């Protein structure tokens, strides 16, 4: 079935700014499909984003109110807008660096308050926009423009972090799992409370290039191989498990 998606795209927008192979476009598409399936009124949607490639997913593309803010501060801006006008359906879409590093404090506090915000974190495990520096989400050992020998530190498990802080809907999917992702997005939109979806999104330009996955399809294949469900993870040996990414719903 062909869907009429134009109504979700702001008049005047012609193309997305993302690099070839970037996962952010697939995520963008998934969000709009979820909104369409729920028949959401774009006039009541507010999309808030920080700074970074991911922050450009809604702004200017989405045909609702969009608030493109400062690096790390999207959740604080969103909190003000949602509290003052609770009729708005407020979705925060931003990057891993934006939400969990510079904005990490706002993230845990927003989760603690359990305010009705739908947070989508586009996790490409790197600072994409600024040229591929290491992020709080870069896996240990991986290379970036500031960790030429490999990242010496452990990454955050973002889902565990926000769940511990009090988020009431928490899920992780990859853009290579679009159907499950759309279902999760729909659940988050319907959920009343703080919902958080971490979406793994490949960045061949900044991440793949430095980690032996130059071509976009290599990163997609890598995600397809590594993303498994909790059930699939059960029987695996520790060594095997260590390179896997567990996807699924973690809260409630």
């Amino acid at each position, binding site marked *: 079935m062909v869907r009429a998606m134009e109504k979700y795209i*702001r008049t*005047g927008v012609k193309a997305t700014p993302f690099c070839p192979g970037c996962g952010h476009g697939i995520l963008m598409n998934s969000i709009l499909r979820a909104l369409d399936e729920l028949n959401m009124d*774009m*006039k*009541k949607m*507010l999309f*808030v984003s920080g700074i970074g490639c991911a922050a450009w997913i809604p*702004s*200017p593309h989405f*045909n*609702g*109110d*969009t*608030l*493109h*803010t*400062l690096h790390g*501060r999207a959740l*604080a*801006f*969103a*909190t*003000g*807008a*949602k*509290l*003052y*006008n609770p*009729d*708005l359906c407020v979705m925060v879409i931003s990057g891993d660096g934006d939400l969990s590093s510079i904005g990490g*404090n*706002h993230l845990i*506090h927003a989760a603690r308050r359990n305010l009705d915000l739908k947070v989508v974190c586009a996790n490409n495990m790197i600072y994409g926009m600024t040229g591929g520096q290491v992020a709080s989400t870069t896996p240990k050992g991986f290379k970036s423009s500031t960790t030429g020998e490999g990242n010496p530190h452990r990454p955050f498990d973002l889902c565990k972090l926000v769940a511990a802080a009090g988020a009431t809907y928490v899920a992780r999917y990859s853009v290579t799992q679009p159907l499950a992702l759309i279902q999760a997005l729909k659940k988050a939109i319907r959920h009343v409370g703080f919902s958080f979806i971490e979406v793994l999104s490949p960045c061949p330009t900044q991440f793949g290039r430095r980690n032996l996955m130059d071509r976009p399809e290599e990163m997609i294949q890598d995600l397809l191989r590594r993303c498994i469900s909790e059930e699939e993870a059960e029987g695996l040996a520790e060594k095997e498990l260590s390179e896997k990414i567990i996807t699924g719903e973690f809260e409630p």
Partner: protein
Amino acid sequence: MISRWIKSPFPKGVYYFSGNEAAAEGAIAAGCRFYAGYPITPSSEIMERMAVRLKEVGGIFIQMEDEIASISAIIGASWAGAKAMTATSGPGFSLMQESIGYAAFTETPCVIIDVQRAGPCTGQATRVGSGDIMQAKWGSHGDYQVIALSPWSVQEMYDLTLRGFNLSERYRVPTLVMSDEAIGHLRENLSIHSKVEIWDRKKKRGRPPFGTEEEGGVPPMPAFGEGERLLVTGSTHDAFGFRKTDDPEVHSRLVDRINQKILRNRTEITETEDYYLEDSERAMIAYGFTARTSLYVVHQLRKEGRKIGMLRLKTLWPFPEEAVTTLGKRVKKVIVPEMNLGQVAGEVKKFCACEVISLHQTNGEVIGPETIMEMLKKI
């Protein structure tokens, strides 16, 4: 665009309020219905009163996780249609600077009260200072304007907070009330009248929210949820909000307009007061608490027959250039006492043709009459 008169939300009367309490009441009177803040001495009483009052008038109060979150939340609320405010002191004011620039560039009305304390850094938290005057103008990066007002009494904590909201709504600009510990904690008579004049941002459906025909104009500002499909960004943007991050013309036009809309209306915005200036040979230029001391000293010296007067700056930014220039032509010497190392004195020097002397004190205490007398004797 016109103002309207409303019934004061607080009963008419004369009260014995602290400056901080009065500021909260001024905000409520102006129609402030959203407050986000983070505790810091000596401003916290504003937040505490707002928590109580907003509940009473059906507004929203939230204590955020830090000052960056506080100012960001009020900007978000402002775009959702609220008149919104936060209050802080030096360290918090420093943290807020990036978002103040965002508010200036996105033309977001909001009010920030800075109850200044003795800096730099954590400095003396319970002591007074006015070291944030230049930061108020230059604290965020790039060329932008804010409006900054300087109350000298509890009454003006109320009046100028109210005026701050009105100016902020009229010009779509962040407005700062640059108070200090001595005024914030002072108790004094506060008169509240039965009616207050308030301004609201103008709205016009379908009009571009970030551009006007006139060069120094103020565009209309709709709110989220009104069906306008707003596109707000802190990146350089065209009249409709589309990002234009490599168009030199769009950038210079926008930067120019957000500056000109304030500078061209300077006479409308700035307020000063003259004391004994008709025949003065020397004059003090003072603001905030220090203007109280200065006026006291001027009165004393006048009793002795000395030809001294005072110009009080009620507005600090945009700087009241005209009043200062005029004074500089009239008198032989201008003396600027202030609780910093000469921040306003430096500005006065730019516009005064006569000699300008900076009298400064940065010991965490107010400048008392004796200190000014002594300083004056030396010159």
